[in-house]
Every structure is written in structure tokens, then in C-alpha cells.
């Protein structure tokens, strides 16, 4: 059993179908003890089929178990095994029940950090958050929450999902460590002694963290923005 990080940020990973990239990084982050969920921004879950123009399409919410059964019962089962599809769904069904759609995730609560795995998904998340701000009025006792959205561009295949997942884990760790340090220092100092410091506030340093991470991950391109729920 993995030990949970008590002061973890509330994180979610997002890709198009909530199967490969977001699920791989979901797994890696979960295994490291972080509080993580995952979503897809596509209109439906699209998985490779017998040919490029015949994908397997499922509704978001279809349990991985069902998808697994469906794929293993098809004639192309051997092909799905050799291209890693079966393995992927098998992994997914041990992580959570079903792929979830980003646009309908109000039930999941608000995240501190959203990590998307493709520029299209990044745009979709930012756009959706704008729509939500306009369309979902909040009650008088509610306050909107700021959310950091980071895109780490990952090619949609098995191997790259693993490499990308490692990169995401490293980035989350860097942000987490910084925030932990910030909390510690805020606790340490009483009153106004920290005034004038450059390096205690996460938001003041997020760009530096991203640059440092990017230096070691030049093949994983990034985007970043702040939005609100």
C-alpha cells in the first residue's frame, strides 16, 4: 500500500480519452502518494481499432472492465495485445472504474493543479473554465478558487506516455517540495519578518520551477496558465 502524502496538492491529469497518457501519469503520481484524479477532454473515448478509420469508440463513463471485455472478445484481440492496448486497459481497470470527462467533473471538486498532456487539451480546459465562470454562478458564501494549468506535451503512444509520466511526476514533486518549503517557512516566521523575500511564494516562483524542469526535459514542451473555478 502506497503511503499517501498528507499535504499533497489536489492534482488531476488530463488527456483526450483518459486512457493512455493521463492514466499513465495518474498511476505514477498515485504510486508516489499524490492526491490525483484523471480526465479526458475528447467528445468520446477513442481507442485504436482494426484499422485507422475504424476506431473503438466508447462513451465516457464506460467502465474499463467493459472495454477490456469488449476488446478481448473481438477478432483482432491478438493485434490489441501486440500493440499494447489490452495491457493498457488492464492497467486502467486496476486504477479506477471508468474514463471520466473533464467537462462533467464538477462532482470531483476543485483542483490546485491540472496537468494536461496535449496542447488541444490545455486549450479545452482553459476554455471550459471560462465557460464555467460565466455559466455556473457561485453562491454568496462561495469563493472562486485559482487553479494552475500546466501542459506537458506527450506523444500518444505507450512508450512516450511512460516517459511523459515520469516527467510529470518530477514536475509535480518540484512544485510540491517548493510549496511544502513555503508552508514551513510561513510557519517558522512570525509577523512580517519574511517581507521582501523573493523566494517563498509558489506563484512568484512557478516560472523558475518550470524553466528548471524544462531544461532537463527539452523534448517535453510545456504551456502554463492560471485560471479560476
Amino acid at each position: 500500500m502506497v503511503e499517501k502524502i498528507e499535504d499533497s496538492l489536489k492534482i488531476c491529469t488530463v488527456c483526450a480519452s483518459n486512457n493512455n497518457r493521463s492514466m499513465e501519469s495518474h498511476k505514477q503520481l498515485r504510486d508516489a502518494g499524490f492526491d490525483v484524479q484523471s480526465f479526458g477532454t475528447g467528445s468520446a473515448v477513442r481507442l485504436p481499432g482494426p484499422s485507422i478509420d475504424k476506431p473503438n469508440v466508447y462513451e465516457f463513463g464506460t467502465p474499463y472492465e467493459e472495454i477490456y471485455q469488449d476488446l478481448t472478445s473481438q477478432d483482432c484481440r491478438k493485434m490489441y495485445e501486440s500493440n499494447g492496448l489490452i495491457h493498457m486497459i488492464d492497467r486502467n481497470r486496476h486504477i479506477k472504474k471508468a474514463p471520466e470527462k473533464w467537462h462533467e467533473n464538477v462532482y470531483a471538486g476543485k483542483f490546485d493543479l491540472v496537468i494536461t498532456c496535449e496542447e488541444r487539451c490545455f486549450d479545452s480546459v482553459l476554455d471550459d473554465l471560462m465557460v464555467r465562470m460565466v455559466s455556473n454562478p457561485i453562491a454568496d458564501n462561495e469563493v472562486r478558487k485559482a487553479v494552475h494549468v500546466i501542459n506537458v506535451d506527450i506523444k500518444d503512444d505507450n512508450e512516450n506516455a511512460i516517459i511523459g509520466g515520469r516527467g510529470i511526476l518530477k514536475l509535480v514533486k518540484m512544485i510540491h517540495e517548493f510549496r511544502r518549503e513555503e508552508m514551513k517557512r510561513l510557519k517558522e516566521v512570525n509577523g512580517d519578518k519574511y517581507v521582501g523575500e523573493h523566494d517563498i511564494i509558489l506563484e512568484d516562483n512557478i516560472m523558475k520551477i518550470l524553466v528548471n524542469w524544462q531544461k532537463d526535459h527539452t523534448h517535453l514542451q510545456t504551456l502554463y496558465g492560471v485560471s479560476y473555478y
Partner: protein
Amino acid sequence: MSSIITQLEQAKSLAFSNKSTFPQVLSQVLKLSTNPDIEVQKWCAKFFKDSFTSSNDVLGITDKIDLAIDALDSLLFLLEVKNLEIFKDSVETAIVVYKLVFKYVVENDGCKDVWVKLNQIIQNLLSKYKSSFPLDHIDEESDLRRAIDCKIELMKFIVLVIDYGSPNQPQSNSNGNGKKKLVIRNQFNLDDVPSNHTLIIPSVLEKQSYNHLDVILSVFNQDILVTPLITASLSHLSVIVSKKSSHFISKILNTLESYDTQRKNQSNYETVEEFKLSRKYIDRSLKVFFSYVLRNQLAPTPQMSQWINKKLNLLISRGDEIRKKNILAPSSQDSNIKKRKFEGGFVNVSKKLKTADYKNLYSLQDPSNELNNFDLTTLPQHILISMTLNSLNKVSVERLTKALNIIVDRYKNTLNDPKFQRQAAKKGGDNWIKNEYGDENDEDDDDDDEDDDDADREGSNEDDYSETVFTLPPPKELSFEEKKSHVNIIIKNFFRLSEKPVNDGGANVDPIAESDKTGVDSELTRIAIKSWKKDSWLILLTRLATRGMRGVDGDEEGGDFKQNENISNIIRKALFDHFLDNIHSRIDLIIEWLSEEWYSEKVFNEDKLIEELREKHSNDEAKVQQELSQATIPTPLYNDWTGKVLDAMIPFLEPNDRKIFIRLLSDLPYLNGELVDRIKSLCFDPVRSKIGFLSLQFLIMYRPPVKDACIGILEELSKSDQEDLREESEKLLKKYKPETVA
């Protein structure tokens, strides 16, 4: 945990478990918020936030409204406390309180006090958005880039005020193209306020809101990129462009039309990599925003849609271009990036040390700057001294004072920090900042009857540190032998230095231009070495020999003068020997040295002569000048050393050294017959006689003062018994003094 906080915790759990006692507890805690203990204030701020944002099942809405009104004073107080946690919690509370109180005022016309206080909070928070509150002010640029989390919170409040303070646009049911229409749901609409309300006058509020929008938009007018803030602003602006009337939308879009990340500057507080990433990130958020505006047909005019479309395409192609490359890799376009003008702050102004050592105490640079790892102790001491003196010469008094004040604060903070005191006691190493005052204080406590002076100095509290005067012991006079050995060390160091590679990067462009602005006398900034170059050591060494050792009083008979002259000659000999080691590559060096030698000697002797003439003519300046213009200023030292150089050089000249020798003759500042006479020996040597004659010819043509001397040599040679000599010299004489040959 202090007892008061323990009690507060108990009260809190009581409140959250019992709806009926909550109002009572909260109103009691409101009174406590002005408690001077920062921990209590922190606790209160957090409790207020938790209370007002709790669901109405925990604390009833009627009670919440009453308590929100009561909370205005506490909020005004807490929003002034310079503490990150208190400020952020209080801004969240202010957001809920604003919504509750605004609606209360709408329904209860006449409660002017409440309305005034609410507006006070608005003004208070608007002004803080432009500062680095609750962090200290450093300089404008740094303030823009700090306390961003607070600004992200504040933005929510300001956008809320704009939203409540301006009417919403009526929505059309269809946007005509059959696409899914953006659903807008409002929390509140200014149009719902009764038209005869005496406090809330919609037109006034709308105008104010329109002005508040400038505060949000200010981030786009800055010349640097503050990525989290800009992207957060774009997210919030989507609310305004979706709901508000066209003059609000136009204002926003007009600002964004002229906005271009390519025209912004790199901040002094960020690396070029950070700047490049920022541009990419912001461009993408802009793209998302513009797509949102177009998709929902929010642009008030077709012209606006047109330029948004254009801009969108530009941003997309820019993004595609960047994606192809490694954005962090240096590129040729990096040279187009301009840095914002530095206002003269320091990058690292932290007044608290993370590690209590001298390196951290004095460093004002970015802690991640690699220069911090350079070990200055590897440089010879005299270089350090000259660097320090140069820097002190150039720095403005204001800037130095500012820097020293930061260091004083750090010192004080560290000495007062019990954590560091313990560490220092444990480590006790040299690098640890010594508690020169604190330790002795302890002793004073035990023995109050210490010596008075000591008690005055050491017993004083930290505020008096700056008054302590430290005097170095007077230097001991060196004996001549000691001076000689030191000069030898200096010379040795210089020559060692001359072999070291020097980075002639030329980063240090024009220190003079900068110091001029600070009002420092320009004479002070006129210096021989503006930046250390490969041959800078030569300037220092020749000046030391010529000017540095000359007695100020000019007493030529005194023992000091002779001793100094002696030391000068040691340096000259060293330079001379250095030259002899490699005549061919060090000709520049020798010219520079002899030029300096001649110049300083001439200036010195001229001054001496003027003095004498003034005495002779009893200060009649006209006579002095007249006689001075006729006088020849002797330069015996120069003549002597130039002679030595020529004597040493001539025997070693090779037939193909023609160029360097003529170069020397051409560049030496002064020549006379005696010096030129040395060329004669060259002419006698059959192998090198060509150089000799060529030199004489050159001097006749280009150095008229020695023309006669050279002709004299030729005449002498023309009487020689060697035929080739005779022939060659007669040829030249025929050309330059035909009458002698004829």
C-alpha cells in the same frame, strides 16, 4: 500553542457543531481580531474565512448578513496586517462579505455607515493590487513580480466589484449560427436596484466599475511579462466580455489589440529562458481567449472580429514555429530581446539569511547566479585591492548606502535569531558570523561593573551598532630593504599575471556615463583602467615605476628620493629584462613603457621648471610662459633607458627585423643624436646594414628633429674605408643633402 488559541479552538469547534451558538461565537471573535498577537490575528483571519464561506446549514444566512456588517471593521484592520496568510484569508472573507453587504444595502436604503465602510474596503484593496503588499516594497519592477498569489486572490475581489457595479447585457436567445449558445447565469444584476435608491446610484457605480477595469488591465500595459497574473487576468476578463455592455468589451479588446509579447522586455529578475517561456505561455492564453471571444461572437463590431481573427492566426503560426524548436536553446533572435531598464535595486534583497555565513550575508545577487561560486581568494590580493578601489570609485553613494542597509538588517536579524545563535555556538567555524555584540552582552549581564567604555559599547542594544567606530592600527614604516623585497614580490606577481588568460569580453562598457548621473565629480571617474584587459598589468606597473615612486615633495637631495628612484629602477630593470626575453613579441610593451616614462618625466620636470621660473620672475606669468616655451625639458631617465633598450636590441636584430625596428624608431616619443648614433653600428654589419640605412632614411624623412643627426651619421659613413658603406651613404646623401656630395 498559547492558551488563548487553545480557547479559541474550543470555541470554534463549539460554533461549527452548533448552529445557534455560532453567531455569538463569531461576534466575540470579531472583537479579538485586533489583538496585537500575530498568532491570534492569524487564527481570527482563518476563522472568519471558514465561517463566512461555510454553508448556510452551519451558519444561517440572516446571521451571516448581520455578522458580515459587524465584520467590516475587523476586516479593515486585518487587511492592513503585513502577513501573507492573514491577507489572503481576509481577501476571501472580503469577497463573501462584499456580496452579503452589497445585497443588504440594496434592500436597506439609508445605511450610509455600512456603505461607506464597504467602499473603504474596495479602495483599500484596489490600491494594494498595484503594490507588493503584504511584502515590502523593493522597486517597481520587483513589486510587479512578487506576492502574485495575493494578486491572484485580489483579482477575484476586483472583478466581483466590477461585476456587481455594472449592469449585465440582456441576452439574445440565439446567436444565429445554430451553434450552442453560451449560457450566462448571473449572481446579481445592477438593474435590479430600485431606481430611487439613495446610496447605490447605478450610473455612478458603472462609471467606477469602468475605471476599476483599468486596474485589471494594467498588467497588459506593463513592459514586462508576469505570466501567472496575465493568464489569470485573461481568464477573468472572459467573464466581463461575456456579460457586460459593449463599452466594457471594447475597452478590454482595445487593450489586447495593442498587446504583443514580442514587444515586451525581459525583466531583470528573470533569465532569458524564463522570458522566452513566458512569451510562449502568454501567447497561448491569448489564443484561447481570442478563440473564446470569436466562438461566442462577443466582439461588438465586425472590425474587431476581423483583427481578432488576424491576431489569432498570428498567434497560432507563432506557436507552430516555436513548437518545432527547443525553446530554451539559444537562438539568433535572442539578441532582439531587450532587458527592462534596471531601476537600481538589487536582485537579492532578502533581509533574512538562510545560512549564517559571510558569503550569504554580503551577497546581493540572485542566489542561483553561478558567479556566486567564484572563489575570489584565488585572485592575488593586489588585484582584489585594485578591484575594490575601482568599484568604490564608481559606485554611487546612494546605491552603496542602500546595499549596506540591507546587510545591516541581515546582520541584526541573524544575531537576534535564536536558531542561528544556537547553530553558531555549535559550529564556531570561521565562516560563521561572529556574534561580536551578543556574546559580550551576556557577560555584561553578569557583571554590570565592567569598564565604562566597554559597557557603553557592548552593553548598548542593536540600534547602536552603527555607532561603533573601528580603527585600524597605524601602519608600521617599512625599511628600504623591506620595500625592496615587497616591490620584487609585486613585480613577480605582475609578470605572473601577464601570463594568465584574461576574458576581454568587454561587458564593462562605460562606467563613467553611469556615475556622471549620480553627480560624482567627473574628475574622480577618470581612470586609466576601465576594465581589466590582457595588458592592464603593464599600465599599473609602468605607472608605479614612473609616477608611483616619485616623491611628492620633490626633494631631490633627500634620502627618500634616492631610495624611491632606486625602487623605480628595480621595476624598470624588471621590465627591461622582460623585454629582452622576447624582443620580437614585446615591442608594443616596450613602446608603451618608454612613452609613459618620457611623458611622466617631462611633465614632472616641466612642473619643476615652472616653479623655478615663477620664483625667478616673481610670478609674472607672461615671462614664465615665454621662457618656458624656449626651454628644453630634459628627460635624462628616459634617454638613459631608451639607450639601454637600443643597445640591447641592436646586436640581436636579424636581417628581417626591419619592420619592428623601424616601428620602434617611429613610435618612441623622443629621439636625439646620441640615441640615433647607435644605428651606426648596424650599418657597419654587412648582413644588417640594410636595416641601418633604411632606418636612417626613415628618420630623415619622418622625424625632422633628428634629421641633422642622421645626415651627420651618413656623412661620417661616407668617409669610411668600406666601399659599400661609402656607396650607400653617398646615395642617400645625394638625395637628402646633395650639396655635401657635390
